């Protein structure tokens, strides 16, 4: 018996409508989740495959820790080829909700979807029963109605992962949604759409077998009592509480006496004080609706919700009654973080308050979020709305240039300018219409630039307004504004936005800088962590810190745990000197699998995954010069605060030569070629990746 793992991989072929079950055992050295999914993609999808070709695949994968009861172990990775970034290389969508747990309940560690259907279908997995069902009636239907229809047609408690019209109509920036709230981005919706795959539904009755349940329970209690804080593992409350030595308004530990879930059933629930050592109160620490939407959201907050196995629950479930009379849509929704901005709602101007001062912003963002979720339109971490506003600025100067006069005049722009939210209904229909020029703006920044470079020049991709981490087209997702070179370096590992929270969880923890610095320097050496916006030139310890950041993310996305909360670098307990515990992930792996996992072995497996993923990127790019083709950051990073020099207080400005030095030091950490930034035979064979090295060599992509 294999503990933690379910032991099976389900393979569904949409071309011939067949399915098979295989052993998942050979992927154990890739931890699971992201590692397993990336390895399957490496073995089965040749570099250079078009993302929308039937030969491309979608891999759902979880790890041994998934749904084993560890806090936040409800994550899943979906891997495929990126439709929206340069080189269209391997990309991951990390998703919460209940998909991971339900897939494992059904008995599978991975689902590989291959081929393509001629007609719309959905896959229904219920334990050993697998069906490929007709979805013709669901094509064109919103994600929420799809979830409802498939639930009605199958079994209560089923988890449905669905695309909307954005995926169906092949918008590069499209996602899948599950449970009407949880999104898997990265353009994966387009790959679904290209396969005429409307949805995947999971249900099952199996449990995860643990090698040492008592140890797992002990670890759970330890994490909940001594290590975990709030969302992003922020360990300091926003306002002073009697048990706390510190308070920081930037923290996501928003719960405090007097702040409520104002619309809770039975009356407001006070979030109160939730001092460390009280596991049952952890769920009151994150009043995320107020954090994301402002104080006005308090009275509309029904509760906090979130993913399976998560004690934090960072999704604010709100009900705003005044929305339905304005939009015709009930104002009930749950969402978190950037999604709470309502994505495309950011183009609206002059939206008027309805019942009270300030509710216009709430209505606008809520309606935008519901629309985008229902259409499965993905925002690329704020890039889409930035692109729309870039084209709409200066009296629609650029928008006019990409449309005919007739097309432009057919749009009721006055609705936008007068705050009529029905403009969003019209806009989103045009965005997902493959025959309309505005659809091109959903291609992702790299492809938008490719198509319209003649009118955009060099400004668009390099601008702060678009805010990419690199000219690949991935959005900056905690870059140089977060721990200087350290944050920026974490981004280059990926072919989309980094989604790496290891570093920002530290800098955003709420602790005083001196405490952060002391703990981080204890781990990585002097000078590893700069003060906020008071940076110093690159050094080797920063490179070690950056490597730690991505290694931990890969571990979390593979075993799986939520990197929006892990690692436990810090603790809320002053008795611990606020030091967390970085051995817990390995302890979970050992307790769950019964295998000999420790920190070193987990790190080794994580680096194997990173080496392989980097090689896959090289293969997709057809060049091994990553430094000059992949790891290029936009000009705005160097051009902020024109009157101020880099490395002075009050700017996060980068310096060109220093960035090149940072890359070199980072490459050294992985044993990559120092000039090119690509894996070498030695760096690959060190991690049992000789087959990958051989393929690179056969294509002339190994450095000399």
């Amino acid at each position: 018996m294999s503990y933690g793992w379910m032991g099976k991989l389900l393979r569904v072929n949409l071309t011939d409508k067949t399915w098979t079950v295989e052993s998942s055992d050979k992927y154990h050295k890739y931890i699971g989740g992201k590692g397993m999914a990336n390895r399957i993609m490496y073995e089965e999808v040749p570099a250079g495959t078009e993302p929308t070709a039937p030969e491309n695949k979608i891999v759902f994968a979880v790890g041994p820790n998934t749904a084993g009861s560890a806090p936040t172990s409800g994550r899943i990775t979906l891997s495929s080829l990126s439709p929206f970034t340069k080189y269209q290389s391997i990309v991951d969508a990390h998703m919460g909700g209940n998909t991971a747990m339900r897939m494992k309940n059904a008995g599978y560690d991975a689902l590989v979807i291959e081929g393509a259907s001629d007609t719309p279908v959905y896959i229904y997995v219920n334990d050993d029963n697998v069906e490929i069902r007709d979805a013709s009636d669901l094509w064109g239907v919103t994600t929420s109605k799809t979830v409802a229809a498939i639930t009605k047609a199958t079994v209560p408690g089923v988890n449905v992962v669905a695309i909307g019209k954005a995926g169906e109509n092949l918008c590069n920036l499209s996602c899948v949604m599950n449970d009407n709230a949880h999104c898997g981005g990265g353009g994966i919706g387009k790959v679904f759409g290209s396969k005429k795959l409307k949805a995947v539904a999971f249900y099952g009755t199996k449990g995860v077998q643990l090698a040492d349940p008592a140890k797992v329970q002990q670890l759970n209690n330890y994490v909940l009592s001594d290590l975990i804080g709030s969302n992003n593992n922020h360990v300091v409350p926003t306002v002073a509480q009697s048990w706390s030595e510190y308070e920081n308004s930037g923290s996501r530990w928003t719960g405090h006496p007097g702040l409520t879930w104002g619309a809770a059933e039975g009356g407001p629930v006070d979030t109160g004080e939730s001092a460390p050592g009280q596991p049952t109160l952890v769920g009151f620490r994150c009043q995320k609706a107020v954090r994301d939407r402002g104080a006005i959201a308090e009275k509309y907050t029904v509760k906090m919700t979130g993913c399976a196995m998560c004690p934090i629950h960072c999704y604010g479930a709100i009900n705003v009654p005044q929305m339905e009379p304005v939009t015709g849509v009930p104002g009930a929704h749950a969402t978190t973080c950037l999604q709470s901005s309502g994505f495309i709602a950011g183009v609206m101007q002059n939206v008027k308050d309805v019942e009270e001062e300030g509710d216009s912003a709430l209505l606008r963002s809520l309606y935008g979020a519901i629309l985008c979720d229902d259409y499965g339109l993905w925002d690329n971490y704020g890039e889409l709305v930035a692109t729309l506003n870039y084209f709409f600025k200066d009296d629609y100067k650029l928008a006019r240039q990409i449309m005919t006069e007739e097309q432009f005049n057919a749009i009721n722009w006055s609705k936008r300018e007068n705050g009529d939210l029905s403009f969003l209904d019209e806009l989103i229909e045009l965005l997902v219409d493959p025959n309309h020029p505005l659809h091109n703006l959903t291609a992702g920044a790299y492809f938008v630039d490719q198509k319209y470079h003649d009118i955009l020049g060099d400004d668009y991709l390099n601008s702060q307004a678009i805010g990419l981490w690199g000219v690949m087209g991935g959005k900056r997702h905690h870059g140089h504004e977060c721990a200087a070179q350290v944050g920026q370096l974490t981004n280059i590992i990926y072919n989309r936005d980094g989604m790496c929270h290891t570093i920002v969880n530290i800098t955003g923890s709420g602790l005083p800088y001196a405490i952060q610095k002391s703990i981080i320097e204890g781990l990585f050496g002097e000078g590893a962590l700069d003060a906020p916006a008071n940076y110093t030139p690159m050094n080797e310890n920063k490179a070690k810190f950056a490597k730690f950041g991505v290694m931990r993310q890969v571990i979390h996305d593979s075993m799986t745990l939520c990197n929006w909360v892990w690692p436990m670098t810090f603790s809320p307990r002053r008795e611990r000197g606020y030091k967390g515990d970085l051995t817990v992930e390995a302890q979970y792996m050992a307790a769950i699998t019964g295998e000999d996992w420790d920190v070193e072995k987990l790190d080794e497996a994580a680096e194997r995954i990173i080496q392989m993923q980097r090689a896959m990127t090289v293969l997709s790019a057809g060049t091994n010069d990553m430094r000059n083709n992949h790891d290029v950051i936009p000009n705005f990073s160097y051009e902020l605060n024109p009157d101020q020099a880099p490395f002075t207080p009050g700017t996060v400005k980068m310096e060109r030569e220093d960035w090149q030095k940072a890359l070199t030091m980072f490459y050294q950490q992985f044993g990559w070629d120092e000039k090119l930034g690509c894996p070498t035979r030695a760096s690959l064979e060190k991690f049992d990746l000789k087959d990958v090295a051989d393929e690179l060599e056969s294509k002339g992509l190994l450095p000399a």
Partner: protein
Amino acid sequence: MSENEIKVNGAQLLYQALRTATEKSKTTGKKALLRKPPVGLTKEETSDLLKALEHGEPAQELKDIAVLKGRKDTWYYDSTIMTHHYAALDSMIQEKDILHTIATVTRQDSKLYPKATEFRKLMDTPFWFTEDELLGAAARFAADPQYADIDVIEASNGQKAFYSKQSLDRHYAEYLHEWYEVGIYENP
């Protein structure tokens, strides 16, 4: 009942009073305690117990009670459930010296995190100052040499904050305040 038993019971009564206040996130001031001793204790008994506490010779029952010297009073709290930091904040608030309170908090925030001290922080628990009070304080800071280091800045969203020039120059403080008010929400 022996004299010793009376003392022990008295210490218990005092401890219960101080702990109950601490559980409500409140420090207890000496003046108020002596004005209205815990039920079952006289003013003299209370005074004796507090003196022993302040001299570092507390009754066994009061060993967890910490003493904090304020500007206008002496304050007591149960250190097993309240931090010195919070006790200092609460005692300052109870002493009602708004300039001293704001300046102390601002100097700490500017030095420690570092960050500016948002008006909205000071308008929330446990301070509950009004905007008018804060604007009034800002005007008085400008005229009082002992607070010459305290100044006000404003982010692009209109939110104001205090910062201390002892730890931050204006430009740096403005960057940090803008980050906490705007940047942090654009980079969630």
